[in-house]
């Protein structure tokens, strides 16, 4: 079981309120990702749930019982840190066994669980090494192993992949996702990378300045961003946001359209411009377009290799049904 509920939670450091009153429910077994730009309070929120920081006001409930004043050691949560935070003076085996030893479990049971975890995470070959002798990816697995042996109510991940190189990151992303499918335990995952959020999450919580901008499944966020912030943050490349005359035509203050929802046409088209930079990836081509009279730069994604290049004139046809409309406050107009 691992349902976590935040009720009117706030956090202040001194006089500065970093998290204004916030309500959030994370259902048992759900993979929830907190995503937002750096300094948005996502890590703070995770540390509040972990109990590593006190909440200033409000309540935290874990499985229906009030955990607000419970010390981290007694919350039954496991955490994987950005720096892995392995104990450098202990072997991999002892690292993984540490939480069980703290729980005063008997040695036979500890050995059994550690071996099982090592099996799952492919750690058996270096079980007697020290963390210093391991690569980044292996350390990451040890940190995860240390978390899973406890069979916690929920896992907390604090940007666990940000110290890995790009290739390894994709691999670990898959491993964590698979682990979640296998264990079906609640996971809360903090990242600033919206690709991680989109690929892993059951539910994404988009944060900005301590405020929840939107909660929803990846596709809900993609299809119906609640405001311009979420619209700009989720999706890659970013959604084009256009204000002014063109927006007024749609009865909105701002309109947004994703690069993949604008078609490049031979001639005519609704919009025209000149190509600034063309990024040819083979499978796709990204155009950064100037002189459209709409925005400084308009980004467009074309499927396949389109042979337009710097300085060429380009004709664009936005798909009308994919245009998002926002009011003066930046909120979505249904």
């Amino acid at each position, binding site marked *: 079981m691992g349902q976590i509920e935040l009720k009117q939670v706030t956090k202040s450091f001194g006089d500065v309120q970093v998290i204004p009153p916030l309500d959030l429910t994370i259902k048992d077994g759900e993979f929830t990702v907190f995503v937002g730009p750096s300094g948005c309070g996502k890590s703070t929120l995770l540390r509040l749930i972990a109990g*590593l920081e006190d909440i200033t006001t409000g309540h935290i409930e874990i499985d229906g019982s009030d955990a607000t004043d419970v010390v981290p050691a007694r919350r039954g949560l496991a*955490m994987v840190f*950005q720096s892995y935070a392995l104990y450098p*003076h202990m072997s991999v085996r002892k690292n993984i066994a540490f939480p069980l030893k703290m729980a005063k479990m008997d040695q036979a049971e500890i050995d059994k669980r550690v071996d099982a975890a090592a099996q799952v995470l492919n750690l058996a070959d270096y079980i007697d090494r020290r963390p210093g002798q391991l690569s980044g990816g292996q350390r990451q697995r040890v940190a995860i192993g240390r978390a899973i042996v406890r069979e916690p109510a929920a896992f907390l991940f604090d940007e666990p992949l940000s110290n890995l190189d790009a290739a390894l990151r994709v691999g670990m992303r898959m491993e964590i996702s698979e682990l979640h499918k296998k264990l079906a335990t609640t996971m809360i995952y903090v990242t600033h990378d919206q690709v991680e959020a989109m690929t892993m999450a059951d539910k994404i919580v988009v944060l900005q300045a301590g405020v929840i901008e939107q909660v929803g499944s990846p596709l809900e966020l993609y299809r119906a961003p609640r405001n311009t912030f979420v619209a700009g943050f989720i999706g890659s490349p970013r959604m084009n946001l256009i204000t002014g005359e063109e927006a007024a035509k749609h009865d909105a203050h701002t309109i947004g359209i994703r690069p993949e929802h604008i078609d490049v046409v031979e001639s005519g088209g609704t919009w025209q411009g000149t190509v600034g930079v063309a990024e040819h990836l083979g499978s796709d081509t990204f155009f950064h377009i100037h002189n459209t009279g709409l925005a400084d730069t308009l980004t467009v994604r074309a499927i396949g290799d389109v042979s337009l290049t710097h300085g060429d004139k380009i004709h664009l046809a936005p798909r009308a049904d994919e245009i998002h409309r926002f009011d003066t406050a930046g909120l979505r107009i249904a």
Partner: protein
Amino acid sequence: MARSVTTQRKTINTTIAWIIGLLIFFPILWTILTSFKTEAQAISDPPLFLFFDWTTENYSTVMERSNYGRFLWNSIIIAGGSTLLGIIIAVPAAWSMAFVPSKRTKDILLWMLSTKMLPAVGVLYPIYLLCIRLGVLDNRVALVIILMLINLPIIVWMLYTYFREIPGEILEAARMDGATLKEEILYVLTPMAIPGIASTLLLNFILAWNEAFWTLNLTAAQAAPLTAFIASYSSPEGLFYAKLSAASTMAIAPILILGWFSQKQLVRGLTFGAVK
């Protein structure tokens, strides 16, 4: 990249460094040599370097004259006791300062160091009087406590600097893993800080071993450590260089040997954790 150096340059470096090193070490070397001479040879002109009749007579004379064993034992108790006690009190304090810093942490640390600057003579008489009133003049326990208090600021400071190198996330991980505060300090922090703690122990043991104000002024027959043992040789009685050298060698030998065996920790400790 370290640059390769010509053999000639290296030879010159080596020669100069060895000459200077030996020059600095010479007083100690000479004292040790003198301790094996007869009194007449000790003051002979020209001085005898290695070619003299080696004798251990001075050592037996010194041993007969005073109870070296008791002075040595007192030194060990006082230096060891004050250092251990200091560490026990300082580890929790340093943990607090390094991992739960507040706005006042730096002030407290600086204040602690500043107590170290209080001139001992300024408070000599009050301490002397308190010791008499409490009946602990010439008492080993009293000296253990006093030397602990004297070195405590340095112990706290050194441990603080060593602890600060340990990432706080590791301690948080221990907390998440269900460790209590005691377990966190005992099983995670302390083992990780072993090199730093060892350096701190060693350095403060040496400082306490060599402390010569309180040990000279607050002890007489019972609790006097080696500093007092050697000070009794300050008034010359006839020919005494060789015996003085023997006594000196006996007073510094334990520390020299200790230093030899734990050079690495000591070098780290000698920088008081302040320079990496």
